[in-house]
């Protein structure tokens, strides 16, 4: 199916979200739409799917102007959309989820058997390996996404719009997912993928549309472009994709971890059943020296989260065993507050859950963790907050870390992901730390801000700070780290030199050392 947006304009109040967009998506191709947050890509696709109606412009399906006023119109025309956040009823089976809204059989007798058979046939046709009788909540995230694909295919979609489909997938799941997309293209389906990961654009798409500030700034063939060109189009200026960093000059060991093990939390019966009593981290030993960045790579869920939380003092003592020494001193008995006082800064992986008080102002967020001591209060033990000092500190963070908009009285919620992250990083870097624990520093962050954050991390290292960097982005860890540990299944599967290692080799370690084809991800 060929889709064409012609002169699409959409205005939200004073903001032009889409400004005369012209995008043509040829039949049986994979088309990537890239751009920074707020560039208008999601708006454009929601117009194509009927969520929004354009103020002006036409949507052409197979060269015919069509009136798409609601998602039902789009579905009737054969357009399907898979959202970033899955819309599945978790306790129900795959079949039940897929037929939801289009239940087969009569009003009183639901006929699921026929539906299950056709879902099985579809699943086999595209080799999705989804069992129609499985309960959704038992499926991995990657499998759930394939259920979403099946949902669209079951409704006879010829064109699929995928909004940030790989954000939730592990590298291996991404590969499988791309293979599925290629098979779909082989069967004549058209695929539109919204993303901001350039490596994926290059790996999967035939054509790329680049958007910036609501306009199309480039329509290019994937094989005729380069990451640098795409990045420049997206941001509007040259972007340094490789991190420019001098070789590290490591000093004494700051953090020494010996035989650190972390037990699974005492959780509900259901999750115990799935995960048994496995250790989240199993006798891990390593050290981080002053002035070096130690990277931790690994498929998410292999112990990285627990490792960082244990080092930051956020896990219950009963779950942790082994020795953690910081500056030669055992910090196991210290709680999160004492560890921060000792000089351990922590940029958490989930900024909305851990890192920010979304309803609080930027000023109040800028003192989280140091709110009880000078300069937030006048002297040690003082109770009253010093509002001027707090605002000064916030303004310093805002200025040095380029937080926009630069208004300390705004709630943190009002900021974009990248600016929220810069605020957290500014707060933690300003301690100043002797050891920085930093997880997923650029997740969901614009390309321009990524470059900025990377430079700041390297600068902190060069100032003599020890850095433990955890990232799911292989590009990021290999570019930043001076040494790289690969975690698999709670153990260190290997330590490599990021300057020399290939991504294939890391991928091998990440999946437990099997050849890529037969690697088993146990969870």
């Amino acid at each position, binding site marked *: 199916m060929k889709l064409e947006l012609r002169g699409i304009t959409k205005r939200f109040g004073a903001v032009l979200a889409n400004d005369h967009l012209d995008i043509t998506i040829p039949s049986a191709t994979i088309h990537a739409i890239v751009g920074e947050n707020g560039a208008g890509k999601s708006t454009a696709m929601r117009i194509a799917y009927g969520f929004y109606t354009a103020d002006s412009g036409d949507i052409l399906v197979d060269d015919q102007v069509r009136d798409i006023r609601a998602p039902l119109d789009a579905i009737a025309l054969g357009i399907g959309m898979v959202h970033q956040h899955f819309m599945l009823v978790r306790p129900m089976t795959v079949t039940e989820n897929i037929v939801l809204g289009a239940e087969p059989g009569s009003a009183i007798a639901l006929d699921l058997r026929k539906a299950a058979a056709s879902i099985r046939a579809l699943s086999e046709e595209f080799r999705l390996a989804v069992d129609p009788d499985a309960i959704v909540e038992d499926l991995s995230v990657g499998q759930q996404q394939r259920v979403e694909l099946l949902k669209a295919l079951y409704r006879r979609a010829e064109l699929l719009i995928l909004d940030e489909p790989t954000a939730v997938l592990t590298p291996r799941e991404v590969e499988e997912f791309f293979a599925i997309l290629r098979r779909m293209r082989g069967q004549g389906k058209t695929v539109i993928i919204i993303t901001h990961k350039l490596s994926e654009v290059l790996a999967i798409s035939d054509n790329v549309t680049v958007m910036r500030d609501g306009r199309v700034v480039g329509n290019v063939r994937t094989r005729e472009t380069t990451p640098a060109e795409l990045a420049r189009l997206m941001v509007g200026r040259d972007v340094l994709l490789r991190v420019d960093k001098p070789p590290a000059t490591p000093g004494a060991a700051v953090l020494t971890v010996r035989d650190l093990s972390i037990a699974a939390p005492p959780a509900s019966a259901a999750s115990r059943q799935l995960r048994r009593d496995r250790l989240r981290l199993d006798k891990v030993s390593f050290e981080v020296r002053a002035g070096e960045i130690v990277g931790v790579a690994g498929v998410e869920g292999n112990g990285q989260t627990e490792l960082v939380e244990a080092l930051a003092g956020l896990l219950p003592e009963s779950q942790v065993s082994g020795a953690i020494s910081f500056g030669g001193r055992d910090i196991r008995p210290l709680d999160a507050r004492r560890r921060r006082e000792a000089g351990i800064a922590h940029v958490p992986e989930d900024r909305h859950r851990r890192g920010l008080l979304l309803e609080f102002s930027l000023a109040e967020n800028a003192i989280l963790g140091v*709110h009880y001591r000078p300069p937030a209060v006048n002297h040690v033990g003082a109770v009253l907050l010093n509002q001027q000092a707090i605002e000064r500190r916030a303004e310093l963070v805002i200025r040095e870390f380029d937080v926009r908009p630069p208004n300390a009285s705004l709630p943190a*919620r009002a900021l974009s992901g990248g600016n929220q992250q810069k605020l957290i990083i500014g707060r933690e870097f300003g301690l100043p730390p002797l050891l920085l624990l930093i997880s997923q520093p650029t997740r969901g962050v614009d390309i321009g801000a990524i470059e900025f954050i990377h430079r700041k991390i390297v600068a902190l290292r060069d100032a003599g700070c020890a850095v433990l960097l955890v990232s799911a982005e292989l590009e990021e860890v290999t570019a930043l780290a001076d040494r790289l540990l690969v975690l698999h299944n709670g153990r260190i599967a290997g330590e490599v030199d990021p300057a020399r290692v290939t991504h294939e080799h890391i991928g091998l370690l990440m999946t437990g050392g099997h050849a890529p084809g037969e690697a088993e991800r146990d969870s």
Partner: protein
Amino acid sequence: MKALGELRFPLIAVLCAFAVGALVVALIGDSPVETYRLLLGSAFSWPDGIGYTLFFATPLIFTGLAVAVALRGGLLNIGAEGQLYVASFATAWVGITFANLPAVVLVPLCCLAAIGGGALWGAIPGILKARFGSHEVINTIMLNFVAVALVGYLTQYHYRMPGDPIMETSPVGAGAHIPRLGAFIPGLPARIPLNVAFLLALLSCWLVYVLLWKTKWGYEIRATGQNPAAAEYGGVSIRREIVLTMAISGALAGMVGINEVLGYRYRYYDGFSDNYGFTGIAVALLGRNHPFGVVVAALLFAVLQRGGVPVDAFTQLVSKDIVLILQALVILFVAAEAMFRSAGSRQRAAGSKGKSAAVGADLQVGPPAGAGQSAPGKI
């Protein structure tokens, strides 16, 4: 400016409640104008109206503050009723047991008993939550029954004067009396029970404001209420905050005992509370969990309470239950505030959508909520 904006929705809710209330009165067959004239006129008359209105507002300020503080800390304290009973009895107990002490010692001692008794009774569900994770709503409700039964038992079998037909304790010592405001304000007769506890309520309101927004302790309470995981990350002990917040909340509820025992009846009178603890929830809701809002909301509920009596007496058909109807309507409209709010934000969306885009979030149908990778408003 910001405060005015905050007041807008509660004000709309109150006006809506009065409008629907007028309709009810008209349906019954009385004149809404006359009814409201009686209601408001009597509540604002001098000295009886104003005196009693402020007196009625006093316990509601305390319980409203109690609920508001707990809610700021992420806890729903439904137990203010039980806390104020335990605290009032404790106040009376101290006043009876140490009746011979001079006022300078006995009054502070009694006040401490009120505060301490409430704090203790409030801390229990806090400790249960911090230790065992049991929900504070269940436990505070249960403890209300325990409190009422406990102080009832103590009154009946241990502190009632022999031959007294009323369920009340013997009187507290004269040194435990706090002055009525009539003693200071010319024209306000001493028979009106408005007393120093009202000033204490205003002082508490200011102190709660300072505590929540100007101290590191308040920062920790609010942080815990807003996002416990982030507070923990910021070095705050969540368990400690839960117990502390519940204790502060209980202490505020307990201060009702100062008004009741030291300033009004000079003894513990069983079942004295006119659901102050529960009305406190509505007061906190209407006052948007802000100490100053709580005072305004408490005054409104006090006006209704005071104005109900003449409405009952001087209208043909309407009974004082119209007050209950108005209270219920106010609560309903406050609860339906989300409705007004979304209507308001739709209007505003046309004007100021630029702000959310300028800060770089993807345009969304919903509020410009959490930009970035996990925007909850994203469809």
